[in-house]
């Protein structure tokens, strides 16, 4: 893979996405406002849960805020990259415009995963980071290099798991053509990631760890943040992320063999 070429193309993607979004100023303002209101709403919901309970699943309010911070960052990434690109795969397949992607001398997964970008999602990422910084203060967390590296690794793994799940579902479009609902279900499951894994019953914990590993996405990085994570959990998250990435890639290449293009 020619890294120079790919970085050049990605710069162009960023530029064209930004230029496209800036064509609609009001829409950007509404998106920014929605991001702020959504975070306020989520924190308000958490305070209601903790009003009568000192802890939920062994997590205090200040600790649960860390999960909210990580969720906000991931949601920001979802809104910035996954939502505008991966939901578009369905449209590409239905309308046959995937033809143009497949006929470009560039990796098709790279193209359809990163072509678009919604800048308003950046605000959510920034808000999430600010919330995490606030949490380090109220939870008296000592920021050092090892801590930051581990946090970064687990968050990157979470992004990879989320991306792979979403991409996997979108890829099934090649056979089923319309899979909007499936990606919506995934988004709904992501909301579950706002709460600590321990706050669910045992069976649900198994479901959200094994079948749909949403729990890994927010809980493991949060535990790392609080210094209560075990090394096997971090290693497991890394392995799950790698397996998911690899599988989604293979699945995409396999699915393309069955792409029949839309009729003209």
């Amino acid at each position, binding site marked *: 893979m*020619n890294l120079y*070429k790919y970085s*050049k*193309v990605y*710069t*162009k*993607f960023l530029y*064209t996405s930004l*230029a*496209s979004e800036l*064509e*609609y100023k009001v829409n950007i303002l509404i998106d920014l406002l929605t991001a702020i209101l959504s975070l306020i709403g989520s924190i308000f919901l958490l305070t209601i849960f903790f009003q009568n309970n000192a802890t939920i699943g062994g997590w205090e309010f200040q600790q649960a805020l860390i999960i909210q911070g990580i969720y906000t960052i991931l949601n920001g990434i979802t809104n910035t990259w996954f939502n505008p690109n991966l939901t578009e795969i369905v449209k590409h397949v239905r*309308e*046959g*415009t995937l*033809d*143009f992607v*497949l*006929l*470009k*001398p*560039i990796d098709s997964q790279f193209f359809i995963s990163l072509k678009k970008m919604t800048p308003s999602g950046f605000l959510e990422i920034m808000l999430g980071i600010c919330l995490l910084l606030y949490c380090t203060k109220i939870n008296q967390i000592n920021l050092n290099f090892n801590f930051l590296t581990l946090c970064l690794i687990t968050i990157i793994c979470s992004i990879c798991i989320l991306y792979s799940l979403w991409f996997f579902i979108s890829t099934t479009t090649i056979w089923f053509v319309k899979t909007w609902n499936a990606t919506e279900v995934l988004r709904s499951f992501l909301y579950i990631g706002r709460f600590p894994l321990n706050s669910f019953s045992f069976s649900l914990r198994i479901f959200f760890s094994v079948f749909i590993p949403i729990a890994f996405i927010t809980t493991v990085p949060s535990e790392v943040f609080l210094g209560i994570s075990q090394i096997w959990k971090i290693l497991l998250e890394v392995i799950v992320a790698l397996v998911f990435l690899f599988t989604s890639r293979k699945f995409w290449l396999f699915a393309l*063999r069955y*792409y*029949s*293009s839309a*009729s*003209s």
Partner: protein
Amino acid sequence: MAKNIIDVRNLSKSFDISSKEPGLKGTIKHFFKRQTKSLKVIKEISFEIKEGEIVGFLGANGAGKTTILKILCGLIYPSEGSIIVSGYFPYKRRDNFLKNITLIMGQKQQLIWDLPPIESFYLNASIYDIDKFEAKRRIKNLSDMLEIDHELFIPVRKLSLGQRMKSELIAALIHKPKILFLDEPTLGLDINAQRNLRNFLQKYNKETNATICLTSHYMKDITSLCKRVICVHNGSISYDGELDLLLKKLSPIKEISIFCRSEEDANHLKNSGFKVKNKTKKEITIKVENNSITSALKTILNNFDIEDLYINEPPIDEIIGKILIKKDHDI
């Protein structure tokens, strides 16, 4: 002698198609258990195309023209047979192969809707590894040929269909492909825009020796661009050869309308052995075989007092219409 750039041998393609009975019962049945059957849409076809050739694919809707084009450019995997395009197996979609081809579809677009076309051109240039200065030069050349200029700086959504199609062409040709696959490129364009596009394709083919494979339902596209046509009927090739030969074959007779100076001459002409289609007072229309036109004209001009005459070509759409419903043995 030009070498073969496309070589197709015994190509077949089957699709799994599901069918549904009408009504609610049929819908529920279809939801739970789909009846699918394998349909062979391309049936063991073979042909070659030489470098620089312009070939038209003719056929009725659903005959398989677009499927052939999509297999040739590597979008659809063939079920059987071998295909080599520009020295590559298209379905492997190697970068070097993709840099040699382009696909233009009249009903689909690749330009970024909210931005001016120029932005899409530079994005494509970076995908094809073309530096900014070279891209600028190529855009200038193509836009001069297509006579489009300030429109390149207006958002695509505000352009007319004709301007959009011209922009699509620039986006698709910026990497100087050797082979152009065009699927109904003039669809929906007005007469002038259609003519401009045809002129551009002719000029482009002449200047770059690019091979062009074209499907179109506008016969003017085929007759003015393609010397050779491949007729597709139900997934099989029913004719592959020169368009002129095909037209002669399908329409072996021409009509000559003759205006005589007197009614007497017209009557005399009627009885002189020609096959008469119809006759009014001084005007007579006769049917003559293509290979006897010259001798027939000589006889008429030497023996009768003629005021005027016309040779009527049968309408091309009518002849091509016959091809679309004809099977192999009919042609």
